[in-house]
């Protein structure tokens, strides 16, 4: 695989505040690259730099071997597709008007545009009337059409900033099926999400915290490397819940009404068993996220 995104020692500063600090990573062609972190971790800022929306304060960025240079962002913009966190489509325009507008902004040849539009709508299985006003569409369909809009000019890489926020679970699942189909067609996907089940679909995941990259690996390796000891699921059996001595644990995290914990010594399990049902579990990506991104900031 060759490299699609190459970020080297990226810094982004806003006055005295450093939003992104010395971040370096690469994304390979045809990869689904997950970019995770708590709110304000610097994910969106990094994506904005990679899409040419924001200038880096320091560092170098290459997209498809082309360096992103201030004043020459348009070269990069032709190679990337972007679906933003908040906005999908203009609500008061029809589907066709939204797509026409996006194509015009990119100076697309009309015949090429019509062909791409047809292919993309077939790709998402949309056969309805294109004169429908967007506000009348279900959120899931809106997201899928917004994905088509970001793909109209056939970018090599698509940046999806929380593309499924506020979307129902079935529609989210469908959306991710589309992402996988895109990758199968050779596209590179760079995605941020707060849904850990979605992040499991990524080939590799970068974890950001306070503007710094704190981990970068496959989901499986992240789980393995974060939890060296057995993780347990603890369900309280008494009401009110009698919490055990926290000194017994290396990790103790609330998980709904239950707890996920790593014992300092497995011999202490018998002490806790009086008040909890205890089960061995494999760590999920959510456990990793809580441990690495949130646990250490507490």
């Amino acid at each position, binding site marked *: 695989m060759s490299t699609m995104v190459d970020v080297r020692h990226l810094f982004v500063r806003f006055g005295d505040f450093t939003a992104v600090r010395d971040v370096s990573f690469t994304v390979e062609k045809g990869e689904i690259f997950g970019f995770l972190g708590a709110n304000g971790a610097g994910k969106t800022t990094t994506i*904005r730099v990679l*899409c*040419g*929306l*924001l*200038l880096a304060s320091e560092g170098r960025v290459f997209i498809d071997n082309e360096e992103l240079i201030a004043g020459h962002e*348009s070269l990069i*913009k*032709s190679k*990337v*597709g*972007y*679906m*933003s*966190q*908040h*906005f999908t489509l*203009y609500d008061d325009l029809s589907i066709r008007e939204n797509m026409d507008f*996006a194509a015009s*902004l*990119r*100076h697309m040849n009309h015949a090429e545009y019509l062909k791409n539009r047809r292919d993309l709508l077939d790709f998402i299985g949309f056969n309805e009337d294109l004169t429908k006003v967007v506000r009348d569409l279900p959120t899931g369909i809106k997201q899928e059409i917004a994905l088509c809009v970001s793909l109209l000019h056939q970018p090599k890489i698509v940046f999806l900033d929380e593309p499924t926020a506020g979307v129902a679970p079935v529609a989210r699942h469908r959306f991710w099926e589309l992402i996988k189909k895109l990758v199968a067609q050779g596209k590179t996907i760079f995605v941020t999400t707060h849904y850990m089940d979605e992040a499991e679909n990524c080939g590799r995941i970068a974890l950001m915290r306070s503007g710094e990259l704190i981990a970068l690996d496959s989901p499986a390796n992240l789980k393995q490397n974060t939890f060296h000891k057995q993780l347990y699921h603890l369900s309280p059996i008494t009401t009110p819940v009698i919490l055990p001595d926290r000194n017994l644990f290396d990790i103790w995290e609330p998980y709904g009404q239950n707890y996920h914990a790593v014992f300092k010594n497995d011999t202490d399990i018998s002490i806790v068993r009086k008040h909890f049902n205890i089960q061995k579990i494999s760590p999920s990506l959510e456990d990793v996220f809580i441990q690495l991104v949130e646990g250490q900031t507490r």
Partner: protein
Amino acid sequence: MKSFSYKRARAIFLKEFKHIFRDPFTLMMALLLPLAIVLILGNSMEFNIKSISMAYLDHDKTQSSRKLVETFASSDYFKPYTVESPAAGEADIRREKARMFLFIPPDFEKEIMAGRKGKVQILLDGADNSTISAVMNYLNTINMNAIYKIKDIPVSKDSLLDFRYRYLYNPELNSQWFSIPGIAAVIIALVAMMLTTLTICREWETGSMEMLLSTPATALEIMIGKLFPYAFLSFGGFIVVFFCAQIIFGVPFVGSYFNIILGTLLFIIGYLATGMFISVVSRKQEVAVQYAATIGLLPLSLLSGFIFPIEYMPDIYQWIASVFPARFYMELSRDQFLKGSSFTDLWFLFFVLGMQALVWIAACVLKFKRSIE
């Protein structure tokens, strides 16, 4: 539950104060806006309008006629200068070089000495109702002072000079003829500014601006693309106001369609760009509306010449008024409705309106570029 709890009301009271003191705009509105209005009104509502430019032609050339002109000059109210012919005096009024023209006929002194009332003709700019009532008051005082100077006798009603007035461009001094073109300018400016005040903010708030910026579209393309649809819309508004003025209020239009259309388009673009600048700076719709109301309405109503004549205000207010296109368009609109000056007479107004539009657009583009960087 008690119908009124002092504790709850106090908690809300304290919370509201915290909001106010943490919001600089509200503080500014509450404290600085009254100050600004008092300063502007205090200086602009100067009823003692002074140094009114007055052209005169003395065909009598006698001691009496000289004393009459002297009376005008020695008051602080008028600044007389002589012209070659009545036509030149009238032309100066049309060009707004003079607000009035005094014509002293050849037999002026003879008439007075014969015990009759000395007749003089006074042409006044009827297109400028804002100064005319003050001028009329001054003329009564001048009349009394002049006859005292000329005849050195106690002034009585019978001894006064016979000032024959003629109001150019608005013979019946119809106040609507004066106010409607001014109102038209204010309405067009307000609508234009409000239309674009929200446009950029809305794109930021919905997040669509990011989508736009992720494409190769440049700041200039975004600004121009956003501005011109509203220019057409505002121009439609102007056409409505223009026909209302003529059909409903009977205001005559004696100017050239080319002049009024060109001037209006430049004016509209200037105000659309002003609104867009507010939108770029504020980024939030509710803040933008507050800015527009304060920054836009204040100069529009007080510093445009709509209510108070600009030329008699202190220099500082004249400079502030010159930043906004309303001052110049107000002049152009009133001129084209009532006087009908030619393009060459008005070239400076077109030039200023054009430059203002360009400067506001450039400011929008630069500020927008900086804000996205």
